[in-house]
């Protein structure tokens, strides 16, 4: 089996005499047997730590959750600067959680959650911060200030939590470079290994925002529902 890996500006081909293995196992094999200089990240091997996110044939995958095939071409995530080989700098993506204030602001005393409350944001709290969605997001590609899919999903997680008693300030905080900048293109949803739809969460945040009197800024000024780049934003 031959696979090619994008390393800096070169594409290097590796020949492996192995079958039926995950991409992560293949990378480990290359690293320890063929080329000690290959750089990539991994941790859990079981799809929960988010370390081994990368692109395979131009689609975001977790290397430990993907069976490698002959001819696969591997490259690092997009929209984050490459440090080396398959390793990108995720600091700026991680920072969006801080900018979006993705945490429980103020605890409501004395609420107890029932089974339905638990289900309300169960999927959102499955996020492993792998950044696949940031790699796929066309808005984040052009606007590094965009709060972005996983941070907005996380905001929804806390906004939808009955224990949060300061919902409004959470909503206030995601108005600029936030919920209205998303084009609802759904790319993030398609690549999420945890079946999270940030797009759907952003729509829910928009509805909440409307409830607090906010409206789509591009809708207001343009009257046509098209964003600055011409893409529909409703």
């Amino acid at each position, binding site marked *: 089996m031959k696979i090619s890996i994008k390393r800096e500006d070169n594409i290097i081909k590796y020949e492996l005499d192995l079958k*039926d293995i*995950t991409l992560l196992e293949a990378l480990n094999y290359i*690293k*320890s*047997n063929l080329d*000690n*200089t290959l*750089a*990539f*990240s*991994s*941790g*859990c*091997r*079981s*799809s*929960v*730590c*988010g*370390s081994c996110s990368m692109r395979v044939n131009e689609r975001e995958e977790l290397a430990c*959750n993907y*069976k490698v095939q002959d001819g696969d071409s591997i490259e690092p995530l997009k929209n984050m600067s490459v*440090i*080396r*080989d398959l*390793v990108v*700098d*995720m*600091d700026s993506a*991680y920072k969006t*959680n*801080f900018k979006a*204030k*993705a*945490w*429980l*602001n103020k*605890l409501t005393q004395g609420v*107890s*959650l*029932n*089974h339905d*409350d*638990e289900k309300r*944001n*169960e999927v959102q*709290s*499955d*996020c*492993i*911060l792998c950044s696949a969605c940031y790699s796929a997001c066309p808005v984040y590609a052009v606007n590094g200030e965009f709060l972005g899919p996983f941070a907005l999903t*996380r905001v929804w997680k*806390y906004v939808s*939590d009955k*224990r*949060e008693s300061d919902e409004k300030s959470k909503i206030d905080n995601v108005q600029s470079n936030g919920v209205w900048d998303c084009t609802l293109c759904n790319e993030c949803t398609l690549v999420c290994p945890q079946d999270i739809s940030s797009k759907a969460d952003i729509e829910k945040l928009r509805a909440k925002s409307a409830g607090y009197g906010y409206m789509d800024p591009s809708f207001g000024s343009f009257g046509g529902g098209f964003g600055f780049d011409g893409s529909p934003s409703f």
Partner: protein
Amino acid sequence: MNYKSDVLIIGAGGAGLTAALHAKESGASVRVLTKEYPTRSQTCMAQGGMNAALANVSEDSVEAHIANTLKSAHGEADEEAVRFMCSEAINAVEWLDSIGVCFSRTADSKIAQRTLGGASAPRACYAQDYTGLKILHTIYDRCLSQDIEILNEKYLLDILKDESGVVKGAKVLDIRSGDIEIYEASAVILASGGYSRIYDKNSTNSTASTGDGIAAASRAGAKLIDMEFVQFHPTALKNSSILISESARGEGGYLLNSKGKRFTNELAPRDVVSRAINDEINKGEEIFLDIRHLGEELINEGLPQERKLAKLYENVDPVHELIPVRPVAHYTMGGIEVDNKSKTSLDGLYACGECANHRVHGANRLGGNSLLEIVVFGKEAGLNAAKYALETKNAQSELVLEDGFFEEIKECKNEIDFYAKREHVGNMFYKDVGIVRTQEQLKSALLEVKELQASLNLMGVSDKSKVYNTNLVEFIEFKNMLEVCEQVVSSAIKREVSCGAHYIV
């Protein structure tokens, strides 16, 4: 460059981040370093749950939790520490709940609890199939809200002291730039996780669990204890060592040998089941976990990750097929000796989490007690280190900086492939310092570890670049692992009678 803070925390798993929050709350300035990113820490892998005697599902008591923990510890735990941990458990879960951890709920809106091995009641609080993930991420979110500084991809090399031997900082490799950095602090907390990866592929652990902090603490002169106590989990996937949760047996799964026969009580303690499987394997049997009779619906509902991982790594669908399993190293009870204030034997140095030994697990940890430990003692470490740091921060002293470990490593030639040696040590340890041990095996293992240490100068890295050199990082990890290996075998040799996870024949 030289950076200063009151408290410096190495490790950003559940233990390190909990310590950070409480140190900051005490008024200290805090900085956290991790060799990965915080949410990639192994804590995210815990599925089963976190113990607290809430009695939400059926009758339970703190006394029962204490009794179960002490029994499992085989007389090697400190009763006072166990008492403290089990009594604090309820506060710990309440705290997690109050910062937004979405624990699973019962029909009457209480936190749900399940029974894990060795517990006399359903005591483990869980968040679906993802307890560790949800706890770690929520604590991380809390750290962001408190604006705690967390620096990613910074690798602890050595702990630094002043002339009087008081710990005052750390020497760190910035993995991205390849530069060495010095971090000064009035107190240092180690929260760098366990050392099960010395068993290489024969371990369920994250590849980061290489015992770096323990090795660095030991080089600085801190005392380690009970290093021989390594817990083997009976059911990991045979080829990949990925954990198949105890809940598979809890739900009624059987263990079968190649003849299709059951051979042990599946619900006995982990060490007993691991030994039973080991005996069968030594007789030439292959071992399988059979959950087919549980039915597709129950498997999808209760064990979805298990089904996915068995398909991915072993090409079997547990709804219709047997799952090949074997016991592998899972949790390390031993570590840096600390007192009830999480202080190590060195002034200025604190430790918590799996790298520390608060003597709450003794010779055998109970499922669900580790997540509990990291939250309870993470808090203690944070509070006590902050108090100490604030009391001593004006004392004048100079860091002693001298070439050591890292400079030596950079001189090593690359003639022997350390990746092959790393695999060899893992397999040798699995065989000779494994589930069942003999004095002869231990002695020969020690000899081999020493030989490998002596030839480290020929095992250097072939990648000479400065930026993000994982070849170098892995080599440093390997050196740390060999130091830890030496400690594990030496203490195993000293303990001549079987005790819990240390089983000697």
